[in-house]
């Protein structure tokens, strides 16, 4: 049976949903799940609650020095923890911190590493996992050939469910070498209060069909009614109608929500590449020939300026 270490990330004092998914994924593998968490912003009780999702122990690097996600330092500490805990598997969320960190850990501990993992491994012969490739257009089944394995889990690939009680929280003495802190994080800018697009369950996106930034009020209103994050197509962020971090697609954010509503977006292949692993897609476009309808589950041919306010009203009424 494997001993599994899970690296969890937190934001604003709470463990991120993608990290809860990683804990649940690890629990689903069977074996003993230990978590490593960094920084003093997340409380001991919040960490102890990870037991609900299947963790038995939490190693807490409760040190201000590790509040900021310094890629190299995190990699050193995680490699050290794998060694000390005798963990042969590391599980983490595929994220802007998880990816660069896991790549360095893989070299340090000589592990096989696979990112964008979408299903639990098949260990009946070897150690095989399924991963998403070609930006969601296909999958690859790969065998991890080294003794140690690292799995970076694609967002929304594992279900968050409660299975247990509480976990014991132990301090973990981090000892990353000074050289690891040679990257100096000078400032962090974070959208607060909003629902973050990469992790959202529901997303409402607008495209060039909305004609201008002044018309985004109705997109925001629809998103607010649903409790959804807002996104956009690339030309929209290129023209500065919306901030860059909302741009969805091949070269932007990849999302895999339960529901993706696309308004006035044609459905160019580069846009689809970022949304095709959404569970349900709704397309609102005045052009019945828009390619997006081919990728949609539900479609409305109509003028966004008429349909969106009506839809928002209907959703409010149905609450």
């Amino acid at each position, binding site marked *: 049976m494997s001993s599994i270490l899970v690296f969890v990330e937190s934001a604003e004092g709470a463990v991120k949903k993608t990290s809860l998914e990683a804990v649940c994924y690890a629990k689903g593998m069977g074996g003993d799940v230990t978590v490593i968490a960094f920084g003093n912003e997340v409380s001991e009780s919040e960490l102890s609650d990870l037991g609900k999702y299947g963790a038995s122990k939490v190693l807490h690097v409760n040190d201000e020095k590790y509040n900021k996600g310094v890629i190299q330092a995190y990699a050193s500490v995680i490699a050290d923890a794998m060694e000390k805990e005798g963990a042969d598997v590391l599980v983490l969320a595929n994220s802007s911190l998880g990816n660069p960190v896991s790549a360095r850990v893989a070299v340090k501990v000589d592990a096989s590493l696979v990112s964008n993992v979408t299903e639990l491994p098949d260990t009946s012969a070897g150690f095989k996992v399924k991963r998403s490739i070609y930006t*969601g257009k296909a999958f690859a089944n790969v065998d991890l050939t080294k003794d140690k394995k690292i799995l970076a889990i694609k967002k929304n690939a594992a279900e968050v469910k409660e299975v247990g009680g509480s976990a014991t929280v132990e301090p973990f003495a981090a000892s990353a070498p000074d050289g690891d802190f040679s990257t100096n994080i000078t400032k962090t800018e974070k959208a607060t209060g909003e629902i973050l697009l990469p992790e959202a369950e529901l997303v409402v996106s607008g495209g060039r069909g909305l004609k201008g930034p002044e018309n985004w009020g109705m997109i925001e209103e629809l998103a607010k009614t649903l409790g959804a994050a807002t996104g956009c197509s690339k030309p929209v962020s290129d023209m500065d109608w919306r901030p860059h971090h909302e741009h969805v697609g091949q070269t932007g954010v990849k999302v895999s929500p339960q529901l993706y509503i696309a308004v006035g977006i044609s459905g160019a292949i580069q846009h689809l590449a970022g949304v095709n692993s959404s569970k349900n897609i709704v397309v609102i476009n005045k052009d019945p020939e828009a390619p997006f309808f081919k990728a949609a589950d539900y479609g409305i041919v109509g003028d966004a300026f008429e349909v969106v306010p009506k839809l928002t009203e209907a959703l409010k009424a149905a609450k």
Partner: protein
Amino acid sequence: MKILVCITHVPDTTSRIAFTDGDTKFDTNGVQFIIGPYDDYALARAVELKEQSGGSITVLNVGGAESEPTIRKALAIGADDAIRVNAEPTDSLFVAAEIANVAKDGGYDLILMGRESIDFNGGMVHGMVGEILGIPSISPVMTLDIEGDTAKMSREIEGGKEYLEVKMPFVAGCQEPIAEWKIPNMRGIMSARTKPLNVVEPSSNQSGTKLEKYEMPPAKGAVKMIDADNVGELVSLLKNEAKVI
């Protein structure tokens, strides 16, 4: 400043994805190959940095002879010379080990590449190269400026940006809006033909994974069309059928 830009040779974004040989090989039939879009951003920024403060750009690709037109395009965009490690890129560890082997004695101040390739979307090579070489690795990098021996960067984080500074050398996985893509001009295309493209044999045979099989997602069901005058029906479908609201 000596810059190494690592590029991938990948199917054009609009390519139809299909597999052959019992789903173990990518079907290249009718597929056009391009420089990975994220690598294109890395190359474009390298060209701008060279224009500002001089230096040289070497492009590197781990791949077979079929990559050469893609490498020539990078030379046409502004790289000075190129290296092709003559091997099939099997997995991220293999590619990273080969890049690190080329880079270790090259005296590069900066190693740039895309945040991920658009075929395997691994996003791991930059970190592995950094770790093998014992230098910092930063990804996904959205802006990059050099002042003396220090680089100032911003990196995308979920729902925001992180600003950081690091001394060279380091590895960066790049993405937009780091630079405007460059389109090769006639002079670039002509000069690319005579720029050196050195082919070297792989140094090791490292790998951490073995491909078993490719798989296509299940076919999508037909779209349900709803009348624009009846948005209530959409609400009830989302509620009762899709169960997402």
